[in-house]
């Protein structure tokens, strides 16, 4: 580990020293040490499954380390429990949010603080102002009386952020806090992080978006397969060197797009599609083997269009043709019959059976295709599919029988992808396919989409991640306020043009 080169190293508020942890014999962390210094943002970067969240859970007392110690304010603990960590002033925004779906936003925000204060009575009236104050500070407008279970992913994430901030924490740990946020919300969060830093709060920040890492942090630790690769001031790194340290190789984010055969038949034709209050008059065609990007700001209607094509919220007007045939899509079943697949935004809660194995999840949507002539399931066929995607998507787990709950966030994501790829749809729509996926795997997932497209699948990628669209899409549709405003092709597809057209 490289130490800081200043004359007087500042005293850390929290340090984890020599932490090791393994799950069922598979090491997840090997001798990792990290310091959180007051007034500093420390970033933790690394590929999916390298152990970032595990390290965080050990610091916050949600998991026990096998060896090592946690030092809080100079006091060493061989292990701590969540209660002690919170009372010690450590707050965490967990990757899975760890909110209570059955309680209101207000209660979710204040409850941890109330527990930590050791109060025995609870008064809904007196905690409300606290929740309101934090919303104001972040300029958010969340409905405090809504139940968290009814919120969108973005609002859940915001609730989790508010909860961590409402406590006067001395250390705040953020595990991928920005995955569902818009640009405005991210910049507000970063402004707040600056204010916290000025107040002397120690922060730990995890993100797969390297530009965020570089913008927000002063110190950086990079991990690979549970080991610490390098630590140092962020100023000594750039995107290239970070991804090299993370993956151990050069990562190529450049545009690789096959020539689109414009004479190829249209797999999907959408004409004058409208849904009141969501989008209007949307028409486009999707060729066989094409990767089409659909982008726009959050709330622009990009998700609603995809949901209409998948029959979740059917369109009011317009026509949808699949393979030249007019198909009325009123229900999800209609879409599935027409061989349209959709990987939703909120995968972690909608797309997976968390307690079931990776294998079960992979084949969950494609069991029908494995029926033999006698109506029984073909074991061999199922095993082949599982193996194909488990290996092909490089899902990082001891074996395919591991329950999905034990996977790292990014690996769980790959399982959802595998599930939908296994259904072999003619048109596959993916909403934010690489949110929370590390930079190396992102490239791999995009490559996988390219391969599937080359084999004849038509792909729609809904995303606001411009580099990703540039890297893989033949054409990019820009949706603004429910209308299709631009269609970018060929040389027009650059990060700058996309971002400009999206917000202009």
């Amino acid at each position, binding site marked *: 580990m490289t130490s800081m080169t200043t004359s007087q190293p500042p005293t850390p508020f929290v340090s984890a020293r020599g932490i090791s942890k393994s799950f069922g014999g598979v090491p997840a962390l090997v001798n990792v040490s990290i310091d959180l210094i007051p007034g500093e943002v420390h970033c933790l970067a690394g590929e999916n499954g390298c152990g970032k969240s595990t390290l965080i859970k050990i610091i916050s007392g*949600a998991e026990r380390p096998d060896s090592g110690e946690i030092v809080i304010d100079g006091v060493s603990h061989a292990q701590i429990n969540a209660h002690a960590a919170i009372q010690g002033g450590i707050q965490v925004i967990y990757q899975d949010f760890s909110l209570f779906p059955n309680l209101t936003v207000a209660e979710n925000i204040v409850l941890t603080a109330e*527990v930590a204060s050791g109060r025995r*009575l*609870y008064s809904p009236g007196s905690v409300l102002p606290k929740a309101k104050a934090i919303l104001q500070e972040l300029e958010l407008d969340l409905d405090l009386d809504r139940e968290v279970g009814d919120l969108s992913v973005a609002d859940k994430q915001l609730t989790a952020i508010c909860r961590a901030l409402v406590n006067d924490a001395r250390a705040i740990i953020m595990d991928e806090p920005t995955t569902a946020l818009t640009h405005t919300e991210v910049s507000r969060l970063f402004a707040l992080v600056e204010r916290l830093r000025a107040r002397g709060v120690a922060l730990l920040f995890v993100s797969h978006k390297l530009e965020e890492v570089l913008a927000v942090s002063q110190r950086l630790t990079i991990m690979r397969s549970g080991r610490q690769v390098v630590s140092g001031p962020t100023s000594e790194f750039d995107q290239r060197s970070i991804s090299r340290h993370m993956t151990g190789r050069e990562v190529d984010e450049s545009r690789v797009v096959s020539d689109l055969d414009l004479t190829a038949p249209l797999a999907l034709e959408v004409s004058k599609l409208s849904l009141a209050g969501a989008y209007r008059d949307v028409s486009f065609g999707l060729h066989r083997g094409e990767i089409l990007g659909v982008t726009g700001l959050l709330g622009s209607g990009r*998700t609603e269009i995809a949901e209409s094509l998948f029959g979740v*919220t059917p369109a009011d007007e317009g026509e949808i043709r699949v393979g030249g045939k007019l198909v009325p899509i009123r229900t999800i079943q209609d879409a599935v019959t027409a061989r349209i697949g959709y990987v939703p935004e909120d995968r972690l809660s909608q797309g997976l059976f968390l307690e079931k194995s990776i294998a079960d999840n992979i084949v969950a949507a494609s069991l029908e295709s494995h029926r033999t002539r006698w109506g029984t399931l073909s074991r061999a066929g199922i095993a082949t599919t599982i193996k194909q995607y488990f290996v092909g998507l490089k899902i990082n787990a001891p074996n395919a029988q591991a329950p999905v709950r034990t996977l790292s966030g990014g690996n769980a994501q790959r399982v959802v992808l595998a599930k939908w790829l296994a259904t072999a749809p003619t048109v596959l729509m993916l909403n934010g396919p690489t949110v929370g996926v590390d930079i190396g795997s992102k490239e791999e997932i995009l490559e996988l989409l390219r391969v599937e497209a080359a084999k004849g699948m038509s792909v729609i990628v809904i995303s606001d991640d411009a580099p990703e669209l540039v890297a893989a899409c033949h054409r990019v549709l820009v949706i603004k306020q429910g209308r299709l405003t631009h269609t970018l092709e060929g040389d027009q597809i650059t990060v700058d043009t996309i971002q400009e057209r999206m917000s202009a």
Partner: protein
Amino acid sequence: MAALRRLRGSNNEGVLALVLLGLIVAMSIANPTFFTLNTGFSILRSAIVPVIFALGVLIVVITGGIDVSFAAIAIFAGYATVSFCLNAGFDPGLPGIFAIAIGVGASLGFVNGIVIAQFSLPTLIVTLGTQGVFFGAMYTYVGASYYAELPGSMAALATSNLLDVTTSSGRAYLHLLVVPVLLLCLLVAWVLKRTMFGRSLYAMGGDLEAARRAGFQVKRTQVSVYMLVGALAAIAGVIHIVLSRSANPRDLVGGELDIIAAVVLGGASIFGGRGSVVGTVLGVLLVQVIKNSLLLVGVPSAWLRTAVGVLLVLGVGIQAIAARRDSRRMRVIEDLDSAQQHEQKVGS
């Protein structure tokens, strides 16, 4: 709209109250003898023990667990207390009797709690097991004989009425014990709403791991919950013995389904995290009224169990369907809202 929603209640208590009211009106029209103070008071009396049980079940169900051993605990605690007093030939008075029974009940609940919290076992299986164990232990170590005489203080309580009204159709009595039951309901409602312990039950039912991460002492709370159920069951056990004016070790066990059905009908989610005292009480009353009406219209009592079973399935089914539809409707409304906001921004 918002006012309407408030009336409906967060767990559909409003709907339940309407159904109950509707049923009472329908029954009174169909059979005038139903609509008398007599029937009303006797339904209230028959609801005393179930309501106490239901409060206990409500508490566990909120945490996402279930306890089917409460009836065994109740009769164990009540019967053991009576048997002890009679055999020792001394009457410690009502406070003493309740204290002994509550001690026994809480200890048995402690056994449930420790096993469940320490070994993270499924609550249904554990309490099914302990139900048998408690029942067997009572037969073996306490006895199996029927006591027709109760200690003096209990016998006196048995005949204490709060109201004694003479109506055209005869005299109607409202038993004194409805008062402590009402107080108990208020107490539990207060604990659930206004104490951190109560909120922790909802948090645990919502997401156990998240509750642990938020700093709640999950295991300790689990143990307390099962002890509390044990204590409530013991109170119900004693009251049952008082009301039936005899101690029969074969009573209560077997009636668990009625209670669980009432709690679920009352809006408590069997998946945890939801439920209220008001809903639970309404659920119990509904079950009692339905059983009463069925008897009155001449349905053989063997069918009552079927009816309760149907109610349980109905309650769970309604919950599942409502949950699914709610989540869908919410989404659509929200999407439209955000899109409309955008449109307005463009327009301005």
